[in-house]
């Protein structure tokens, strides 16, 4: 396992043995082939993070993420969602699949 990227709470790795990436969530590490990584990115992109700052729309400021075809379930707070988004986006840049963002994400 080679570490490619690290954010405040999480780290992103590439496996040496199989064709997949791994995200270490601290208490658990999940395996993501690129399609699952793109799917995670899409889920993060569609989160209405601004609702977290509106007591009526998202009272508790949590998001439920169901990943890898419902294999893993995560409940993340606002800061964790922002951190994970930053990790995924900057990892894609490091992998050469995306351009560095014009504006900072957080």
């Amino acid at each position, binding site marked *: 396992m080679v570490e490619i990227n690290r954010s405040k709470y999480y780290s992103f790795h590439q*496996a040496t043995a199989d064709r997949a990436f791994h995200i270490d969530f601290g208490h658990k590490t999940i395996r993501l*082939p*690129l399609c699952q990584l*793109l*799917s995670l*990115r899409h889920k993060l992109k569609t989160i209405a993070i601004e609702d977290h700052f509106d007591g009526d729309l998202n009272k508790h400021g949590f998001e439920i993420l169901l990943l890898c075809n419902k294999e893993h379930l995560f409940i993340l707070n606002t800061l964790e969602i922002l951190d994970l988004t930053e990790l995924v986006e900057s990892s*894609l840049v490091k992998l*050469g*699949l*995306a351009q560095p963002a014009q504006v900072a994400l957080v």
Partner: protein
Amino acid sequence: MKDIARQSMSIKVESMDMLNAQIKMEAHASASYLAMASWCEQNGFFTSAKFFFKQAEEEREHMMKIFNFLVDTGGSPMSPEITNINHDYASIVDVFESTLDHEVKVTKSIHNIVKKARELGDIATERFLDWFVMEQVEEENTIRDILDMISVTGTEGVGLQMIDNQVANWME
């Protein structure tokens, strides 16, 4: 270390996002043309209805072309959610004018993706869109010709019926 990322996907993530947005736009066009076909049927413009049924099918084919390109390049194509389909038109002229507006929007969107793909150095996406660029030239031209025919024919008396009959000329 193996480049798993590049081995898994041959276009840029930004291109994938733009192509997914284009999938949505083509699906929206398809649904809009179906609504226009419905309007034409209900208002006695039966040839125009056929024209729009066919357009609706073509737009879906455009959508699938992009969808399959994303499959081929290892991207993640998303099945689009379509809302806000207008079913109200003031006249048959309004229908064709809305069609031209929509096609111009699609053309601009495709040109925009070509430019961005070029900036990203994403040659595969840029080349893939060549077909769409030329297709848009043709589609815009078809609708412009129909609008020209409408203004020459005029909408007085039997004009409307003549307009509908002549739409057949633009259906191969």
